[in-house]
């Protein structure tokens, strides 16, 4: 099957490699920035273009990868659905619930498949946590703490640095953990959030979210784009008969490069030394679904719900009150 990539930034490049590993052929790379499109297209002998619509509508394209800034996701998904293409969309699925609903309606109408990259569901460490919980190792889970983040991503002019576009760490980064919590423990009832969202004297975001789950469990989720460097993921699950802890800083492989001052990396992808990347696993899941082999681990409704929960967190941060879900 052939792939058109819409959005050739950091995440677009990473997904291109994963898709290629899964045997997809990259035929078109579109980006508003012609240089970004060219750089990626060259690697795969694909067409470079600034015309996203043209790339989507090419007859030889089966799948469209949506790796634009988040506010454009829904629009590109709708265009791709209308053109009858299957869609892999990076998270967050959409900037608003309405956008997400409209996009899902378009996908349903066109009878194409939409997959949203909630990749944490595929991470080996998270799968191991899940297996231990399901095996009853810690009894009944009662409290979960999740922690994710590091340096503020993106260069000085990056869309990540515009809270209106990225939603800051709560919407762009913590949505991974909000999705995983719901995946593991069901629906949240109530959410409370404090989010820093500073721009002066420097871009710094730090988000603290409390969730009360319908089953009585509690969760505290912390997202940071306030650190001077690095990236760290920590999970702690406390149960009636034990506890699980994971810390990405305790790792089989570590390396540290001197970074350029005054700007973060264009994207942050946690990485460990592993046989198969979780990003490749999500592509395999998506492709298997298209081929009719199985149902996907992430449904479009899951992705929409993650957007709803993350937006509820931001609403709580804006109003200073808990939000019922």
């Amino acid at each position, binding site marked *: 099957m052939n792939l058109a990539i819409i959005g050739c930034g950091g995440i677009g490049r990473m997904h291109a490699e994963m898709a290629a590993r899964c045997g997809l052929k990259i035929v078109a790379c579109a980006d508003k920035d012609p240089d970004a499109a060219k750089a990626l297209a060259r690697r795969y002998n694909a067409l470079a273009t600034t015309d996203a619509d043209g790339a989507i509508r090419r007859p030889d394209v089966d799948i469209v990868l949506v790796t634009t800034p988040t506010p454009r996701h829904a629009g590109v998904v709708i265009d791709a659905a209308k053109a009858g293409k299957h869609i892999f969309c990076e998270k967050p699925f959409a900037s608003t619930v309405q956008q997400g609903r409209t996009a899902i309606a378009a996908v349903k109408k066109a009878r194409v498949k939409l997959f949203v990259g909630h990749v944490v569901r595929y991470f080996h460490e998270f799968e191991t946590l899940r297996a231990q919980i399901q095996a009853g190792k810690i009894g009944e889970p009662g*409290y979960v703490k999740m922690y994710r983040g590091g340096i503020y991503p993106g260069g000085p002019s990056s869309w990540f640095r515009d809270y209106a576009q990225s939603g800051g760490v709560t919407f762009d980064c913590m949505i991974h953990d909000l999705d995983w919590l719901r995946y593991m423990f069901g629906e949240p009832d109530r959410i*409370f959030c*404090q989010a*820093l969202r500073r721009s002066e004297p420097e871009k*710094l975001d730090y988000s603290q979210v409390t969730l009360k789950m319908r089953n009585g469990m*509690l969760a505290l989720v912390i997202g940071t784009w306030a650190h*001077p460097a690095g990236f760290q993921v920590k999970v702690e699950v406390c149960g009636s008969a034990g*506890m699980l802890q994971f810390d990405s800083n305790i790792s089989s492989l570590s390396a540290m490069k001197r970074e350029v001052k005054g700007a973060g990396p264009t994207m942050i992808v946690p990485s460990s030394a592993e046989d198969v990347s979780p990003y490749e696993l999500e592509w395999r899941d998506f492709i298997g679904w298209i081929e009719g082999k199985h149902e996907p681990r992430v449904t479009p409704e899951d992705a929409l719900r993650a957007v709803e929960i993350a937006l509820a967190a931001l609403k709580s941060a804006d109003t*200073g009150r808990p939000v019922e879900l």
Partner: protein
Amino acid sequence: MPKIGIMSFAHMHAYSYGACLNALPEAEFVAVWDDKPRRGRAAARQFGATFVSKLEKFLDLDLDGVIICSENVKHREMTTLAAQAGKWVLCEKPLATNVADAHAMIKACEKAKVGLGTAFPCRFAAPLRVARDRIVSGEFGAVYAAACTNNGSNPGGWFAEDMLSGGGATMDHTVHVVDVLRWITGKEFRKVYCEAGNVLHRDTLETDDVGLLQLEMEGGAQVSHVASWSRPKSFPTWGDVTIEFICEKGVLNVDAFNQRVDVYSDAAMKAEWVSWGGNPDLGLVRDFVRAIMEKRPPCATGLDGLRATEVTVAAYESLKSGNVVKIRA
């Protein structure tokens, strides 16, 4: 040399304070009173002190100060009686389970012109002292946010009985971190939102075993705090006090009791974290003894205990109402 007595060994910290008193050359651990005579007698024997079964007789002794380690709800009565008998008081935390009790305790000590201290040993933990020094120095600029934990294991016993403890993990494990943040930033807490759960120990406890607090301080710093009894029996240590400070000029993490050597002993069949850090209780007890000698307030006063209690009480109010609660100060 100040003569000190301990009132009640209901709280296990009394055993540590007793050992500290015996280790201090400038103090004399004279007597024990306990409303459970068996417990009190055994403790007195352990520390070489005299057990006095009648409270009036204990209070008639020539003691300069007492350390009160009763169940939380009895702090007020014991503090008031000790103050009336002219003893300086170091009271185990939480100072009180409600604001009225804390006020009454402060008033009683003021009236009797004796010092009142709240047992906040974290102020004597070296990692927290260094964290405070570095933040106070201005090296990190303004504190924008803090994420804190005070996790522990299930203490059981009276801790889990609301009528004696005044609450669960939130009552037990909120005040240390509240005090540390006030001490480090010099600012008061303004608002709190709290969720609490009891999934972990609901078969054995009637109280909450996890409290998740979201707080706002004067000047707007956003704080999250986990007060829990979540550490399982298999965990290699009792728990933790941790704070991540997000500041204008950087991030500072303190894990106050994580100065450790990891021990794997086949005799225990579980890993053990053995501390090589200092003993904060020794600093706390020494400060109390010296406060008596120097006729100055202890490091953490009754007012500090009251401020911490106000936050806990507001957290439970929030839990009941489901809303953010303003903290009176």
